């Protein structure tokens, strides 16, 4: 808290010395921008950006979990899908922007698609790794206790075992998705949203607003990450508490 206050003081002083809103808007100017636009942020930009984010991460989960799980559990699925994943995965998500626009137009779906491309692989890979590292003794214990079907072994053994790894993948995916979101909106895949506003205020040379939106993005990203960690790690993965130290 002290260090943050210090940063704000240094920032404000530096802005006063530089005395050029284009180069560095001051803290007070950014506050003023906030008081002018907070309603717009809350009612327009935030819902749109969260929609893009939710679409991308949500569909990313729906696609990545079943694929990662079947690749981790079934040899054939691994052999079949691994080459495809390895070829598509290194393509930076932002390189999909032209196709996103051609396929979806300037819609929420297009931005969601870019976010999806950023989110899907970290979840997929971590699910796969979690399944692959499952010790044999848990599978055999489950078998001698009566779980002989693949569906039971996946549901009761592999999935709960892999959950910490999957949760880690989701956290990484959310971070990448957040970056992709801003880039997708900035490059004109969308006509509103937090990222879009940064770019449009830049065109107007209103750097105090640019900085305000940057800060809003940072704080929101932090909040998303913290709330995910709280819900998943504190509640769902309590059994790991003693294992991680």
């Amino acid at each position: 808290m002290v260090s943050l206050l210090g940063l704000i003081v240094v920032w404000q002083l530096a802005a006063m010395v530089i005395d050029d809103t284009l180069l560095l808007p001051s803290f007070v100017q950014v506050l003023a921008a906030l008081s002018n636009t907070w309603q717009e942020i809350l009612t327009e930009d935030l819902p749109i950006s969260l929609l893009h984010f939710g679409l991308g991460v949500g569909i990313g989960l729906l696609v990545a979990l079943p694929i990662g799980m079947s690749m981790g559990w079934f040899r054939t699925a691994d052999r079949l899908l691994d080459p495809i994943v390895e070829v598509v995965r290194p393509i930076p998500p932002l390189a999909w922007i032209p196709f996103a626009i051609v396929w979806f137009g300037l819609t929420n779906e297009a931005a969601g698609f870019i976010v999806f491309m950023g989110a899907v692989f970290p979840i997929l890979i971590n699910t796969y790794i979690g399944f692959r590292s499952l010790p044999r003794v848990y599978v055999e214990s489950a078998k001698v206790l009566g779980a002989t079907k693949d569906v039971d072994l996946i549901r009761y053994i592999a999935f709960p075992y892999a959950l910490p790894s999957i949760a880690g993948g989701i956290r990484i995916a959310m971070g990448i998705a957040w970056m992709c979101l801003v880039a997708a909106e900035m490059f004109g895949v969308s006509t509103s949203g937090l990222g879009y506003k940064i770019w449009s205020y830049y065109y107007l040379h209103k750097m105090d607003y640019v900085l305000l939106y940057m800060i809003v993005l940072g704080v929101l990203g932090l909040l998303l990450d913290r709330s995910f960690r709280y819900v998943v790690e504190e509640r769902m993965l309590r059994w790991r508490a003693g294992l991680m130290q």
Partner: protein
Amino acid sequence: MALLEIKNVGKLFQVDGQDMEALQDINLSIRDHEFVCFIGPSGCGKTTLLRIIAGLDDPSSGSVYLDGDLIMGPGPERGMVFQEYSLFPWRTVIDNIAFGLELKGVNKKERLERSKQYLKMVGLERFSDRYPHELSGGMKQRVAIARALVNDPKALLMDEPFGALDAQTRNIMQSELLRIWEEERSTVVFVTHSVDEAIYLADRIVIMSARPGRIKDVISIDIPRPRVRTSTEVNGIRDRILADLKSEIVTS
């Protein structure tokens, strides 16, 4: 009729493209409510034989019957306790024990009731809601035994279950196991490399030879329980088994 019938069981493994004979021509009948220990030098295939009985490995030749039925794969009527700690770390103690009942579709109330009963049997009622990482090694194996027994198995298969425990805990666990066995009256097949453990526990000790693994000798132990680990009778049997095993280690 015997409960477990092991008939002409052999097992080949492929090692670097060559066949390695892990088990050769194993024949043995185990009675209902019998406590049988397998003992032998490492590499004699005793664990492999236990895994074949469990249904986790297939024999290359021969077959195993439980109550007259051919064993085709793993199942809850043959409970197993592993050497390594095998409790599911994401489940609490009580939920680990209830796992088999959950799979059978037993409703939650009955599941918990029956699991609690077995938790009490192994003396860990107070640890019901703990996670496995909060338990000591001996406690973990107690829970593993309860988890196998709650399925009401006809045979309990144990693969050096106390191998990782310190000597003191190990002795306590052996007496506890005998008490539980007498209460439950299920058949126990127990693999160990400790001669003392085998003599303390077993009705019959099966001595195996190495490469290929064969039954070398079967010794019945009629000393009434609880056995005194240092009595002259126990010492006599121990000398005989050790001599048997020594010749094995020299020849292998």
